């Protein structure tokens, strides 16, 4: 029944149902293009997913990123090496300590510098606490997006405990700039260890709740099982790492494979799951939180043994000079340090002045340091050409790689599974867009 002037016109009487449906199918304007755009509650930040939908199933998905591109890497080329840690920490803002450690490991590799043992223990402690906080956000928002609101509330309750400890030590809840090339900026406060004990006990008391809520919950399993599957070959094709790769049953963890910061001396095990789907990634994140808690306890004992040891490298030319204490008007240089540099030693004043204004000079060359962030392999490639400022810094964010796998996970699935897929990848757009 086609009439040239108007285009294909369908007359409903007499024609059989199948013919109508078949003719309808090949008309082509079947699919609708929808924007799961930058301002959307469940895209974990400003990620735009261009979905082509046929009814409720997704026929094609194209992630659009760049809505949070901040030009951090270019800005760092105009700052000294130790100032770089303040920029890097704002990239993946859910796990800031990992950016700082990756950057500092790369700079220390360029300087062939060895960090004192207590600084390594503090770095591991902060990284593992930050891993728990990051997994709590991933599990919390992931659960909230499929209706489990309590996951978000209890998730953020635990996270506040960890942020309180961070604030007590380095002064800020987020964006700490705590780890600097050469060590860490400040030692634990006097009540640091009792506070840490409090956080550990609180986490022991409450970390099991997440599993109790969701592991055997039929709705949770129904929404997560068999959704967003990425088997081992696909993981290799997309260069996946972290929980996404371990959910495919492959125990690849940089903390075990290529240890850094003394990880080889801690005992913890690598969690894998074999169902390579969103449920597997969720279970891995839960189990990894308790593994991190085990490491935090070992750090607690080591911190007890090494109290009083330096937390910054000895060499005054590279060490960050400030000895910070909480003064009357907030954090600042301790009076002994000021008396020492102003009164007692001229060299200390020169080193302080030169390191703070000009920064230390890093010999020319390039280095790549990769660490195991909660989302996967976070690498930092630093190029220096002999000056006091990095020539080029490139942070390889796991979320950037994992978002490439989003189309492979979501095409053919329902639109509600797209939400679960993106939540299971746990991209943080600050790190993806840099």
């Amino acid at each position: 029944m086609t009439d040239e002037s108007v285009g294909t016109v369908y007359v409903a009487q007499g024609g059989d149902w199948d013919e109508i449906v078949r003719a309808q199918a090949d008309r082509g304007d079947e699919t609708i293009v929808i924007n799961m755009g930058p301002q959307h509650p469940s895209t974990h930040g400003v990620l735009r997913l261009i979905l082509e939908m046929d009814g409720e199933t997704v026929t094609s998905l194209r992630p659009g990123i760049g809505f949070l591109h901040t030009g951090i890497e270019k800005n760092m080329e105009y700052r000294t090496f130790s100032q770089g840690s303040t920029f890097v920490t704002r990239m993946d803002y859910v796990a800031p300590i990992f950016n700082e450690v990756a950057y500092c490991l790369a700079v220390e590799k360029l300087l062939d510098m060895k960090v004192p043992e207590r600084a390594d223990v503090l770095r591991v402690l902060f990284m593992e606490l930050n891993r728990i906080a990051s997994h709590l956000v991933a599990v919390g928002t992931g659960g909230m997006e499929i209706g489990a609101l309590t996951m978000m509330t209890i998730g953020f309750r635990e996270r506040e405990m960890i942020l309180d400890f961070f604030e007590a030590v380095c002064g800020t809840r987020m964006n700490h700039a705590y780890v600097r090339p050469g060590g860490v900026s400040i030692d634990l406060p006097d009540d640091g260890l009792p506070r840490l004990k409090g956080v550990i006990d609180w986490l022991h008391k409450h970390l099991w709740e997440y599993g109790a809520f969701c592991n055997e919950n039929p709705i949770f399993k129904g929404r997560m099982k068999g959704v967003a599957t990425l088997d081992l070959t696909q993981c290799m094709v997309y260069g996946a790492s972290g929980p996404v790769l371990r959910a495919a049953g492959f125990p690849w963890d940089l903390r075990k494979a290529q240890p850094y910061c003394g990880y080889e001396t801690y005992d913890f095990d690598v969690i894998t799951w074999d169902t390579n789907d969103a449920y597997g990634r969720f279970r891995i994140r839960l189990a990894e939180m308790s593994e991190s808690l085990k490491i935090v306890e070992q750090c607690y004992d080591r911190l007890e043994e090494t109290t009083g040891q330096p937390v910054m490298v000895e060499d005054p030319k590279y060490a960050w000079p400030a000895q910070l204490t909480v003064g009357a008007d907030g954090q600042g240089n301790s009076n002994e340090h000021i008396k020492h540099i102003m009164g007692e030693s001229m060299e200390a004043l020169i080193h302080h002045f030169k390191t703070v204004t000009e920064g230390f000079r890093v010999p020319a060359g390039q280095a790549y340091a990769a660490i195991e962030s909660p989302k996967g392999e976070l690498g930092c490639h630093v190029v220096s050409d002999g000056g006091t400022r990095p020539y080029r810094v490139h942070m390889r964010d796991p979320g950037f790689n994992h978002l490439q796998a989003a189309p492979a996970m979501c095409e053919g699935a329902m639109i509600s599974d797209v939400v679960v897929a993106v939540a299971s990848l746990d991209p943080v757009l600050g790190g993806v867009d840099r």
Partner: protein
Amino acid sequence: MNAYVPILGLMALAALFLGVSIFASVHIGPDRYNKAKYDTYECGIEPTPQPTGGGRFPVKYYITAMLFIVFDIEIVFLYPWAVAFNQLGVFAFFEMLMFVATVIIAYIYVVRRGGLTWE
């Protein structure tokens, strides 16, 4: 009579709420015209221009919507019975069964003719 007073009260309350809210939003809210305000909301992206009147959309949506309305109304009829079926006794039960049977026949017809398959 007194059984109906709460229902009437409820309806009056609903009407009152409806009137006040519409009147308030029309008169109290500062309406400032803005072309973007009347565009469709696409998560912050300028909406792709649609043909006027919404353009042609596949007939499957229309069919699914119609079928939904038919079976939804059927459930509405079941509610009064479901609320008081023990007072109504066995006769009402069989009556309801016949009503459900007629709708089941329509349902089987639709399933056989492929109304519910999406492709």
